[in-house]
Every structure is written in C-alpha cells, then in structure tokens.
C-alpha cells in the first residue's frame, strides 16, 4: 500500500497542525500560567492594570527584591499547615490503592474464572454501583457514622473510598484476567494445586501490568475525591482537596489567595509526574473498556 496516497494536502496539513497547537495551548497554558504566577504576589497574579505584570512580576520585585517569591508556598505549607493535608493524602492514597487492589484482584480473578450465571449479575450490580454519584451515598453514611463515632477519622474515609472504588476495579481486573488464558491455572490445578495456590503461584507473577493500570486509576480516584473527603473528614484530618476548598473561604484578606494558588500547584505537581511516567498505562486503561465494549 502506498503511504503517499494517504498523505494530506499541504493546506489540510497546516490546518490540522494549527488545530493541534491551539489545543495544546488550551490544555497546557492554564497550568504553566498558574505555576509561573504562584511565585508572584497577589497584585501581580491578578494584575488589573497591565497583564504583563504577571509575567515580569513588577510588584513582586518592589516587595521582595526579586521576580520570584516563595511566600505563597511558605504561607500554605507552614502557616496554614498544608503539609498535614499532604501527609493525610499520602496515607489515604496508599491504603486505598493497596486495599482496593487486594480486594479487586481476588474478586476480579474469581469473576473471570467462574462461568455461572451469578457472575453476570454481580458485574451488572457493580456497574450500577459505579454509576452512583458518591455524594448521594454520603448522606447515607453520616447518620450511622455519627452514631458510632466513626466520623472524621482517616480509616473510615479509606474504607469508604475503597468501597466506592471496587466496582470500577472489579470491571477493569475482570476484563484483564479474562485475557490471561484459563489453561495456565487449569494445568496448575491438574498438577495438584488448589485454586488459591494456582492463583498465588501462576497468576500473581504475571498479573502486574493489569494491576498497575488499575492501581493508577484507584490512586486518581482517591487523590481527586472531594465529595467524600470533604464530608467525612474532620478539619485536622483533611486531605489536600478539601483543604484547598477551605482556603477559598478565607481568601478575602490579601495574600491568602496566593496560599491557595501555591497549594493548587503543589497538589497538581504529583499528577504531572504520574502522567509523565505512566502515560502508556493511563491511555491503555482508558481505552480498555471502549475497545472491548
């Protein structure tokens, strides 16, 4: 087949390249702009008079003697104790990912290896649960959690996020395990392994690609959640996202907006790194459901 025939005419080529450039600006510019602006004072970040102030940092120079200042970061991390929220987020994400994957691999493996009718109904139920907006469940949690004194602490939030995460994890891992040939664990069972031993010695060593992809999405869910964490955590246990939301309530005094900007940049940075290293897995995870269905 001649590749030449598929070549675009120059006009179309320019047009589509221009479009990609515009889209790239739309997608990336807000982040770069905010990153740059987070090292300025508020009057530069929101510059009414001349927008180039936010690039050159005229007032930042006037106030701090240099075009960059880390006042926002200092204020957010030390004064407002954002580090505590970062620490909480790390705990929540770590446990949510570990527990979700443990539960999810066991369940997903079982669903992919059983041919009874009920597996279908379990998957359908999971699909329905996946569609429930988490905030609708939260009103169901509050009363019992208050009654039993479980409200406000990290373990409760972790287990709730694990549960909310399960339907998605189950679907992802179920379709991943289906691609692993059944003959592998069947032959292990013929050799005298129990089902669990077959899982332990045959499946676990080869399941990591699927588990990593699923783990990334569990991580994103836990990291990005706002509805559950803001409702179920007390003030001192807040994770990053609700903490940032609470900064906004107190933004009226000067300087505080910059705390929020610095916190937002700090919370975005790990996601940047994540996409950089795991781009391939994220893309394959996103398309998995689509190509199958």
């Amino acid at each position, binding site marked *: 087949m001649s590749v030449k025939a598929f070549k675009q005419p120059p006009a179309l080529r320019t047009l589509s390249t221009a479009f990609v450039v515009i889209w790239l600006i739309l997608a990336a510019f*807000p982040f770069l702009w905010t990153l740059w602006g987070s090292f300025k004072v508020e009057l530069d970040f929101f*510059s009414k008079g001349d927008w180039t102030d936010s690039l050159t940092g005229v007032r930042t120079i006037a106030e701090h003697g240099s075009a960059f200042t880390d006042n926002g970061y200092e204020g957010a991390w030390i004064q407002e104790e954002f580090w505590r929220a970062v620490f909480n987020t790390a705990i929540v994400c770590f446990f949510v990912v570990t527990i979700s994957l443990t539960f999810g691999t*066991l369940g997903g493996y079982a669903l992919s290896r059983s041919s009874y009718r009920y597996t279908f109904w379990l998957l*359908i139920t999971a699909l*329905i649960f996946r569609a429930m907006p988490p905030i*609708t469940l939260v009103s169901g949690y509050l009363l019992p959690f208050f009654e039993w004194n479980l409200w406000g602490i990290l373990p409760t939030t972790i287990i709730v996020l694990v549960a909310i995460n399960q339907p998605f994890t189950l679907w992802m891992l179920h379709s991943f395990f289906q691609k692993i040939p059944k003959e592998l664990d069947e032959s292990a069972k013929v050799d005298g392994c129990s089902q669990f031993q077959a899982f332990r010695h045959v499946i676990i060593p080869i399941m990591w690609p699927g588990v990593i992809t699923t783990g990334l999405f569990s991580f994103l869910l836990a990291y990005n959640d706002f509805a559950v964490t803001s409702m179920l955590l007390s003030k001192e246990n807040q994770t990053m996202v609700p903490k940032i939301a609470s900064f906004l309530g107190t933004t009226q005094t000067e300087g505080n907006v910059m705390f929020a900007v610095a916190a937002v940049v700090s919370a*975005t940075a790990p996601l940047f790194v994540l996409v950089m290293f795991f781009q391939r897995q994220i893309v394959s995870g996103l398309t998995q*459901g*689509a190509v199958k269905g």
Partner: protein
Amino acid sequence: MKHKTFFWFILPTATAMLLFIALPIMSVVTQSLFTPHEQVFKVVENCGPFGCTESTSIDAEATEALRAEAPLGRFAGLGIYLDRGHLAVTEVGDAWRNRDSIGDFLGSLANLPFYRAMGFTLTYTFTVTPLLIALGFVIAISVNSLHRHLKGLVIFFSLLPMIVTPLIGSLILFWMIDSRGVIGTGLQWLFSDPDLSLKASTGLTWVMLIVYGVWHAAPFAFVVFYAGLQTLPKDTLESAMIDGATRWQQTKYVVIPHLMPLVTFVALIQLMDNFRVFEPIVGFNAEAHATSLSWIIFNDLGGETRLLSSAATTSVLTIIGVSILLSPVLVRTWRDFSTKG
C-alpha cells in the same frame, strides 16, 4: 470454579460494596421518608407578685431524649419529596394554573431550587456531551496525522485537563477568568467593555461551566477515538480512495462508521458523569447562578445544620435520574452477554 472457592474469593469485595454502597443506598431511601423531630415545647407558669403568666419554652432535655430514641426522626412518608425544596407539587400546580404563557410557567419553575438545579444539570449534560465528543474527534484526527515523535508529547499535555482534580482544574480556570486574571482582562479588551465579568451574569456563568466541562472531558474522548483510529481498516480506506472518494467522503463513510461504537461508548459514560456535575460549581463559586443536584445534596449536608432528610431525598431523586441515563448501558451489556452465550 466451585461455588465455595468463588465465595471466598469474592467475599472481601462483596462485603465492602454491600456495607458501603448497598446499605447506604437503603439508608438514604429510609432517611428520605423521615423528617427531623420538632422541638418539644413545655409551658411553664411563672407566678409572681403580680399574678401568674404562662410562658412557652423549648424543653431541651425532652427534645434531646426524643432525638436519641429515634435518630431518624418522625415518619413523613413522601412528604419531603413533595415539599417546596424538592418536587414542589403544590407550587408547580399553582404556577401551572396561574400561568400566562409557557415561558412564564418555566420562569416560576426556575425559582424552585430542585427545578433550577435540574435545569442546569440537564443543560450541562446535554450540551457538554456532544461538544466534547466533537472536540475529542477533531483532536484525534489531527493528532493522528502528526509525526510519530510528536504524538507522545501531545498526548501527555492532552491528558492533563482530564487527570487533574476537577476542583483544582476549575480553580485554575476560575483565577484566569477573574476580571483581574489574564483571560478575564483579555475578554474585557476584546469586547472593549471594562466592566465585563463572567461571574456576574447567569448566562455567562453557564457558558463558563460548559466550557470547563468540555475542556475537562474532551481528552477522554480524544484518547478513546485515537485508539480507535489505530485499528482503522486500511484496506477499506484504500478501496474507497481507488473508487474516487474524496478525503471528506473517506472520513464520512469509512472513519466515522468505524468509530461509531466508540462514540456510543463515550456518550453513555459521559452522560452519566456529566449528570453528577458538582466540583466545578464549587470551584467556580457559581452557586448563585448555577446549581446542580449534587450541589444541593452537598449544600444540605454541609454547614451547621445538617439537613440529612432533605439531602437524602435529593439523593434518591438523583439516583432515579442516574438510573434513567444508565438503562441504555445496561441494555447494551445485557445484549453483549446474551450474544456471547
């Protein structure tokens, strides 16, 4: 796999979902049928030198006791569903009887919190979804024709709007479109209107939220379509070309039909996701102009007075809405499963 082995494998995940998804849904439904206790009043007679006066005061102890005894509150049946904060049956009936025109009727509906939120939620869902599919498709087509070394870089930046926490993404845009921010100032300059503020008008706020929604979700459509383009049937495309199809005709008759199942997939997923729109409203601080069902629940639950029953009722109504949007997905899954045997 034997039933018993299956049971042990599925037990942890099933327990988690049962305890924290199934039971809460039941609890929400139950809660929505109850309304908080009213304060218990007691009448105290104060007798002094000038005779006796009766005064009514709140009996805090008795109220507390009542609450402890039945934390759910009084049984109200469907009362909360029909009250002004939710379906507002009486108000809607009145508005319908006293209407001058359909527009007038819709105007009075827009004053009722539930219908106001419903109006925005539906508008948002049904404008954002087609727009993001269109944008995602165009990006996918354009990126696909790029040089392969550039593709990775473009995909990296394209993923960012989707991966970033919705609240954070909306905050970043919110600061930029602030009347002192770079886009806000740019727009003022463009329309030469120094008082232009996107936050001040309802229409512009809606546009802003919809633009955010498309920006946030287009990468998903892009990635899915881009993956679809990699499996494009080259032979069909080639024969179409030999038959004299123009580039546009090739796209219309070969590429789009090939991607159609993916379009359905993206549309179904996004309809459900957009229906729960919530974080952007908080991030853009837009509740004065636009509310959504999820936002009403959040608002009822937060604050000093936690309106659990009211929130539960809105939750049940939201769940009903989601189920309606979900039904085509279920039908599809059912069909897939049946054909597979």
